[in-house]
């Protein structure tokens, strides 16, 4: 069949609902006219005279129903909103996908499979039907899916899985059927189609078999599985791409078995190079001061930031620069943007001088320990301007990506947390409740070191948190853990904290002048940037600890 005829047939199929509705409406109108014409003029006039009122009543009834359905039942209609996106409208080119080099290589293979399907079949290869993209949010899964569609040059149907879920059981399943039917029709016309289901975990989580609910999600998921299987049978060139930031093991195993989402693409947070490229890409879209902004340095500072975070930082910087009546983004704008995104907006409180002083010393303690003892973290900013619940904050960021934590790094975390407490105690001879979150953090790390990671001094090896429900997935009875073991572990946790406390006290006494300097600077300026902090330490001949 010629391509044009195929597309004509496809359009007929896609428009069949409209055609059916128009035919039915036409038939009804013709019948109504025929009926009216067969009436005598008097009765016809009566009928016509009643029609406006009837139309108003019908419209009123419909409005009441729609209002009740949409507002009282918080539902929408059985058919989902238009999911189809034309390839040219997706407008995400392969070159637009910055970073994600590993994922891009794998995705390219998928593009080739879509493009050259016949070749794969010829050599007896198996056609990929499902591609599952996993990874933290904001790492570019949707972006990559769009780029695949653009590159493959086929229609792209995009839906969020949450759109399938409705109040009535069966609506979700019906929407899945509609989506795949449409994909099938488009594939017939254009030679292929991509179905992209975002936030797949909304319907893809482990199915529950309970009488108290979950049937709608189950039936939607079942329908999705059936449809993906159906694609195999029909040999249709439809690729289903799912994206989720939920852990793989939280998805139903049935979804992950071969033949369904059999290829998995892990899209992780970008590394240093990728972050640099991403910063370069987004900064290329705004005017920025090249003298003050060092992209390499920013990339180093933005460890664990996702591409979406980086995009947000640049956009926020541009907004701040515009508000500051500057023509180009400067480093301080970027710094403020990062601070806003990471720490929230400043929330000035009227502190009494004593409390302000206490806060400044508390934060100065954190800064000194972090700078001098932490092997992997840099101070980004110290501030005694309140944000959210905190009266002050020392914002720090990792120097490099570490996918594991060393004992030294963890101990440095604990010491940093305890530094505020120690400083308050030395300076004022008393402490405040401002240490609450610090203690929670320190205690949590110490506890995990001893109970989970074998970093204890009592020789206990193993993850003791699997006893009981602390891990959430425990299968071992908590009562199997003896009191003496618990006592030993808890005692060692306290030992770690005490040892760290002692180290911090020693350091503080030794470096008290620096602490005092920073506290006074903070009281004066309220905020200190990394460069200012670094300069103070260098004045005292101190260098930052390296890993």
């Amino acid at each position: 069949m010629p391509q044009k005829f195929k597309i004509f047939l496809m359009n007929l199929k896609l428009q069949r609902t409209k055609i059916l509705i128009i035919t039915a409406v036409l038939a009804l109108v013709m019948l109504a006219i025929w009926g009216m014409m067969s009436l005598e003029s008097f009765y016809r006039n009566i009928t016509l005279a009643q029609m406006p009122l009837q139309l108003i009543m019908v419209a009123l009834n419909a409005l009441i129903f729609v209002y009740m359905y949409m507002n009282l039942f918080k539902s929408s209609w059985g058919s989902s909103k238009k999911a189809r996106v034309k390839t040219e409208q997706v407008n995400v080119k392969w070159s637009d996908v910055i970073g994600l080099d590993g994922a891009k290589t794998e995705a390219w293979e998928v593009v080739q499979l879509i493009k050259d399907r016949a070749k794969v079949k010829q050599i007896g290869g198996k056609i990929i039907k499902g591609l599952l993209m996993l990874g933290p949010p904001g790492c570019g899964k949707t972006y990559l899916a769009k780029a695949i569609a653009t590159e493959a040059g086929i229609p792209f149907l995009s839906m969020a899985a949450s759109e399938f879920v409705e109040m009535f059981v069966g609506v979700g399943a019906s929407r899945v059927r509609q989506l795949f039917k449409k994909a099938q029709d488009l594939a017939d016309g254009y030679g292929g189609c991509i179905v992209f289901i975002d936030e797949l975990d909304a319907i893809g989580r482990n199915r529950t078999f309970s009488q108290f609910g979950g049937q709608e999600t189950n039936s939607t998921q079942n329908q999705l599985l059936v449809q993906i299987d159906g694609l195999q049978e029909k040999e249709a060139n439809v690729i289903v791409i799912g994206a989720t930031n939920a852990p793989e093991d939280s998805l139903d195993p049935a979804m992950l078995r071969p033949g369904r989402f059999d290829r998995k693409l892990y899209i992780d947070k970008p590394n240093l190079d990728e972050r640099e490229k991403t910063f370069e890409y987004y900064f290329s879209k705004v005017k920025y001061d090249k003298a003050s902004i060092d992209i390499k340095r920013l990339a180093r500072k933005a460890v664990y930031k996702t591409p979406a975070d980086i995009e947000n930082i640049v956009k926020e910087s541009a907004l701040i620069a515009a508000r500051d009546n500057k023509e180009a983004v400067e480093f301080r704008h970027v710094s403020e943007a990062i601070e806003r995104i990471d720490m929230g907006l400043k929330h000035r409180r009227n502190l009494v001088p004593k409390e302000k002083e206490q806060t400044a010393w508390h934060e100065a303690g954190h800064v000194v320990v972090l700078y001098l003892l932490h092997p992997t973290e840099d101070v980004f900013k110290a501030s005694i301007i309140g944000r959210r619940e905190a009266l002050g904050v020392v914002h720090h960021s990792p120097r490099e990506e570490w996918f594991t934590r060393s004992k030294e790094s963890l101990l440095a975390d604990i010491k940093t947390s305890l530094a505020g407490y120690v400083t308050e105690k030395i300076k004022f001879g008393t402490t405040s409740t401002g240490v609450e979150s610090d203690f929670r953090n320190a205690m949590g790390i110490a506890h995990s070191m001893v109970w989970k990671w074998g970093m204890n001094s009592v020789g206990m090896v193993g993850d003791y948190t699997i006893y009981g429900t602390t891990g959430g997935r425990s299968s071992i009875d908590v009562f199997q853990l003896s009191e003496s073991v618990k006592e030993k572990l808890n005692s060692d946790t306290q030992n770690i904290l005490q040892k760290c406390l002692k180290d911090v006290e020693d350091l503080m006494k030794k470096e008290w002048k620096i602490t005092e300097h920073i506290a006074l600077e903070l009281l004066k300026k309220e905020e200190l940037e990394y460069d200012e902090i670094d300069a103070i330490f260098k004045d005292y001949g101190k260098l930052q600890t390296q890993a």
Partner: protein
Amino acid sequence: MRIGRLWLVIACICLSIALSGCAPTYPKENFKEHVVRLCKKEYKLDVKVETIGKTIAIYVPLTNLLDFAFTLTQDAGEKINNVILSVSRVALSSDSNYEFYCVIAHDVKIPEIQIVIIKSVDDVKRYMLGDISRGEYSKRMLIDMKVSPQAQKERSIREAFERMSVDRKWQEGVMQDFFRSDPTTLGDIGYWGGRFYIKDVSMPEFLAEEIASRVRFVFRDDKKLDEAAMLRSSKGSYVVSGDSDRSIKIEIAAESRNTGSFTSEELSDKIFASVLAVSYEVVHGYKFGDFDYLTITNLSDGRSSKVTKEDLEKYKPKKTKIEDVMVFDTF
């Protein structure tokens, strides 16, 4: 855009077809033929139709019009109803401006006896639209079963001719020239000797007759009144005297049965009050204002009363005392 155009085309087609069907089903030019054809087609009845002014007359020849008890047979009643329905359909779905129609039915074996039904087209329309109830609709219909006035007249004349030994060949000519003329009252409407005797019914005389007809219903339905008095006759007419003196004249003949339930004065008042209430109902129901006063006369006791249009408008049945609106006189 394409879909929008398609809907526009559909709407245009529908509109043109719908508008083409807006013409009257029965154009006035062939009004009579339509009635005849409809009665023949739908009910296999051969009728004759005549029109005069704004009145249509339909003659329906029937067999077995009356039974041995001198009441209308069921078959004849159905046929008359069918004719009424047919003429109503044509009148309502026509661009003609007929206001009244008279259905004249008689038994071909006893042509002297006839039933005349007079209706207002507007009443039929209002009934069809649910503006008036079925009971009210039936009260607004004038039904008269009687010996044809023309037949009576011609019989009397012929008897006189016989007594005078007028040659038969002259009788028909004299009858035609001097005694066969169009009626002047609604009571004279009929069909005799292959000729319609009809007049153009006017709204005032129709209403006057309707009041008289309704008074008969009141005497039939009000048991106390019926037990106390006997209505011998009830007639209504619309009288125009001089240039501007227009009145509705109701003449009844109601006699006391002397049962003792009412004194003669009480009974007379009750009769007048009943007639007044009926008159108010009719005048108010038709929003009729083309009269100056109403006269009610009881021929049996010679009592008469005059009510002006303004007083009749103020009258509230069961609330207003009749002395407040009526001025009595005795002749």
